[in-house]
């Protein structure tokens, strides 16, 4: 299915922010993933037309980056850190508890397309190790039990929007630093909840 008008409109705004069209490729791939939960062939065709590079070039870039998914992702992407500060703070226990609860191994999605599990490299939350991200919203100071509580809560609540501050309050512990005032923005899909797209250079 090709992109709807609104998405195309956003794409054009993004392209205009850059001196050269091709620079928009990264953000456009996020738009694609926001639509389907992965980079579909239809989106590749669409993007290739929008910025004037070949489909193979789009695919080659998409496959380079781990946040552009080649296969459908569940509604909630669970990314547990396994890098050094987390590793020495028993992240492997958190990893095991999440894997056990979801029944998933690395980079797998469940049959209901609900959870995708992945273990990832440092997410910049080392002071609050071990840490996890849910749709790129960070939770710090996790325990194996809290990690399971978090998964259960997602299952029961199915929140439309995932907000780091809310998850941290409910399931987190030690933080890397004082987060101060809460952000009530978050992610609505397994892509970073970040809207570049309504500001552009014209704005005064």
């Amino acid at each position, binding site marked *: 299915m090709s992109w709807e008008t609104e998405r195309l409109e956003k794409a054009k705004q993004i392209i205009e922010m850059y001196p050269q069209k091709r620079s928009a490729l990264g953000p456009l791939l996020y738009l694609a993933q926001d639509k389907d939960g992965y980079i579909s062939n239809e989106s590749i065709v669409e993007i290739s037309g929008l910025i004037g590079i070949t489909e193979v070039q789009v695919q080659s870039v998409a496959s380079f980056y781990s946040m552009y998914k080649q296969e459908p992702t569940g509604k909630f992407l669970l990314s547990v850190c396994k890098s050094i500060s987390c590793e020495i703070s028993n992240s492997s226990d958190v990893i095991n508890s999440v894997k056990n609860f979801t029944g998933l191994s690395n980079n797998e999605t469940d049959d209901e397309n609900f959870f995708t599990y992945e273990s990832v490299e440092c997410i910049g939350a080392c002071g609050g190790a071990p840490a996890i991200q849910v749709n790129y919203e960070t939770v710090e100071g996790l325990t194996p039990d809290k990690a399971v509580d978090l998964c259960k809560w997602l299952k029961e609540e199915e929140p439309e929007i995932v907000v780091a501050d809310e998850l941290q309050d409910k399931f987190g512990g030690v933080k890397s630093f004082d987060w101060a005032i809460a952000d009530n923005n978050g992610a609505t899909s397994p892509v970073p909840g970040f809207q570049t797209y309504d500001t552009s250079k014209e704005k*005064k």
Partner: protein
Amino acid sequence: MKETLLLTKHMRENPEDSHSLKSYEKNGGYESVKKVLKSGTPEEVLQEIKDSNIRGRGGAGFPTGVKWGFLAEDEERYLVINGDESEPGTFKDRILLERDPHQLIEGMIITCFAANISKAFIYIRGEYAKPARRVQSAIEEAYEKGYLGKNIFGSSMNLDIVVHLGAGAYICGEETALLNSLEGRRGEPRLKPPFFPAVKGLYNKPTLVNNVETISSVPWIMSNSGKDYSSLGVEGSTGTRIFSLSGHINNPGNYEIEMGSSFGEFVDTLGKGVKNKAIKAYIPGGASAPWLRGDQLDVKMTIDDVANEGSMLGSGAVVMMDEDTNLVLAAKSLVSFFAHESCGQCTPCREGTTWLENILERVASGRGRLSDIDLLLDVCDNISPGLTWPPKMTTICPLGPSATASIVSLMKDFRSEVEVLLPKKVVIG
């Protein structure tokens, strides 16, 4: 030992809303840039930065004034802020982006004034969604006030800033890979020469690439002076630095301190010590840095002192490992990181890191071979001949050579921890 707050003062004192324009201005924000735009010249700004002796905070520690001085002439030049922060152990740029984005924006405006640049980018790693949102809304606030866009602050200067999200590739922190990524390409480092960003950067135009913390320091330097800044810290490591402290530590966090005190003092006072245990080893400057031993805690936290010990202050990430740490697993985690993040262009890095990971994996799980120690060192030697630090390069960028750091540390100072995992030597005859 106390902190010296320059960059983190405003956020500390205004926890409720330090990220907002209102709070930033109420506390003297944007005064620096106003002064510069009204009565300063680009030459004067450059001179202050040179006088400050500030060295880049992204890891390489290159003198910022010198870098700005290298920027080639061209009608089209760019500033790119490196907010890719992905070096395991590091979370200092995150706090600057999240809690004081206007300080960065003000620093960018001053930098662009000094370098005659009208288009700038902030490249933020994709996983930093919340910091990116904070920066984006700060930019919107600045546009609304006329601090960005055309004729900013009523001057003749124009400046547009775009936030660009990365997508999960550590290598994009390397500046030339970052530029490729920003151009919509695979994040593969470019060969230097000819691709020094200051000469051939974004779209092959002269480009300044600077770290978030480096440019966030600019407003303080300009509202005080380069000399004031250089009077803090020690020679060669002037000013303050934000250290990210993590691992086995009672009080982890970001601490802004003048460089020059010892790691031990830092850990004991600000870090409140290591959970009743001795420190076996620590990483003084991020995953790429060789480890120091627990009996080396009197090393001073300066770029040169750490270099003299055969490691580096790098990204300012200090990771403490106590006496119970399984260092083989620690090394395996570090090596897996590099294996996963290798961009794959250079054979020694691509193949070498994968082999190191596989061999360590089998050693850690008790399936190691007697020859594995030599094999590990041999693979390291093929990635970086001589196993020196700073490492010799066989590759396009330093990622591959950095992967050897933890293994060399392990073999040099903690070899017995590997040996016990290996089968006993069979004596023949």
